[in-house]
């Protein structure tokens, strides 16, 4: 009988200990900054974690991947959001990069356009104005009508970085406000070409045709494997001796719940 009470007592103490940990009244703060492209995902993950950890105050900001890593190493922030692999200089013994999502940019044309594939070189040549007629890439004898996003758009920045090797879209391109309007414009013009990030593609549906690039079709698998050329990888990076709150944020981002948030925002979950 005494042994029973001892065991039950230990059990109660254990549960109390677990419960006690969860309701620690001390405030914790966390600062996440970096990639502006990742902001919507950071925001959603922060929101999701804040609901569960009421005593955790999380601030998040943009600023860019590169400044984010610098700030991380100076310990000015706790988690850096980075939308690319770290460079050889940035990567050191203390950096820990966690891949949390993948996304991509699709090249879109009108569904009636006979061109179904372009090589990465052709994409570059078309968007920087060197190729101006569809017949140069096996299509109809018609001028290529370029569409791009307005200056300042994260999508436009990302597109120029990964599809144009840092070059810029030709001046003749019509500037569009949003992904939705880009899809609308291309859907109405048989000679149009534009680009859409993954989260606008679902809504565009059958109204536009997605080109395969280097004969690789864009789908979940080719995005995860990276074989589809215009893929984006999203990382959160921790540095030396990260605070518990930072580790908790990463755990959440990689948890089933966090990855579901990623999925609901039309990015590709990695777990």
């Amino acid at each position, binding site marked *: 009988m005494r042994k029973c009470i001892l065991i039950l007592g230990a059990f109660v103490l254990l549960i109390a200990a677990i419960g006690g940990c969860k309701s620690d009244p001390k405030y914790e703060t966390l600062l996440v900054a970096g990639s502006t492209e990742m902001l919507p995902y950071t925001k959603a993950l922060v929101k999701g974690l804040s609901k569960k950890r009421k005593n955790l105050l999380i601030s998040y900001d943009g600023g860019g991947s590169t400044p984010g890593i610098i700030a991380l190493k100076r310990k000015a922030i706790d988690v850096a959001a980075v939308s690319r692999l770290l460079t050889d200089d940035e990567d050191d013994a203390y950096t820990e990069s966690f891949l949390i999502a993948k996304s991509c940019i699709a090249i879109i044309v009108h569904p009636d356009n006979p061109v179904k594939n372009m090589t990465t070189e052709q994409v570059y040549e078309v968007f920087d104005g060197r190729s101006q007629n569809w017949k140069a890439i096996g299509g109809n004898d018609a001028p290529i009508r370029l569409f791009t996003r307005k200056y300042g758009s994260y999508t436009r920045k990302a597109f120029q970085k990964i599809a144009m090797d840092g070059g810029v879209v030709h001046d003749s391109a019509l500037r569009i406000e949003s992904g939705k309007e880009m899809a609308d414009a291309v859907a109405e013009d048989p000679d149009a070409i534009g680009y859409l990030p993954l989260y606008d593609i679902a809504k565009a549906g059958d109204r536009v045709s997605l080109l395969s690039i280097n004969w690789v079709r864009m789908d979940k698998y080719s995005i*995860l494997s*990276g074989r589809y050329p215009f893929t984006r990888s999203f990382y959160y990076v921790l540095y030396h001796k990260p605070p518990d709150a930072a580790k908790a944020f990463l*755990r959440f981002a990689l*948890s089933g719940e966090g990855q579901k948030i990623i999925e609901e925002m039309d990015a590709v979950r990695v777990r």
Partner: protein
Amino acid sequence: MRQRHTGNIIFKTGRLLTWLVWLICLMSGTAWAKGILFKGSLAVLPVAQLVAEAYMRENPSVLISVDGGGTARGIKALIQGTAQVGMASVEISDELKHFADEKGVELVFHKIGHDSVIPVVHPYNPVYSLSLEQLRQAYAGTISNWKEIGGKDAPIELLTLSRLTGSYDVWRGYVMTGETPMTPDAMQCSEERLHRLIRGNPNAIGYLPIKSVSKGVRPLSINGVYGNVSSIMAGKFPIRRLLGLYVRKGDPDPDIRELVRYFRDPDIGQYLMKSKGMIPLE
């Protein structure tokens, strides 16, 4: 009688505890999720992408991501636990071995094949073979005219691939022997561009992974040995690099073991390697 009674209570309490912990985990959203990350060598990347996609199609509940970054970055991520497989085209460095020891991580290497790079010239170039030493001197800039190596009296126009590529690493390791710096006069380009420039310039020399050596350029033999799949596999061609996968020793994940098997399977990974112009194991 009392002891048995107590034993029962311990047993039941244990079960209750386990069930409770599992329930807490479930409720806190850490439901079992399956993600595997392959990270590392760009030389292994092309076949890893194909194997990953093939595996995901057979196993829809497993998500496999593949990333570059180079061998060292891949092994580092593996040691830190942010990646599950390190793709490697060089053996683990002492520095990283030390890092692994520090973290108490033991790694196992599974070889999957080889790759190589072949020096190429214009089809009209009268030079058919060079020694490794001549190649090194040409790329170091100490030999600058073709006539010094049996060719025409014309300047050697050097082409090289981007420093971020596995091919550049191979060239640097096997031709420059890792010590001699490549002359900055060597023009950096992509494979496509290098191929195009060689086709158009009888004085140009470059190098390409074996899969990219196609019509329009002529491969050079090294020390009289022609570089093809059999001479590379036989170890006769002097440029040959082992490719493989690092994993954590005793990794309990059955998918990791199965994936390694996929790579080494003659009908899956090995076949895909050949399709990508890589040299298989056997």
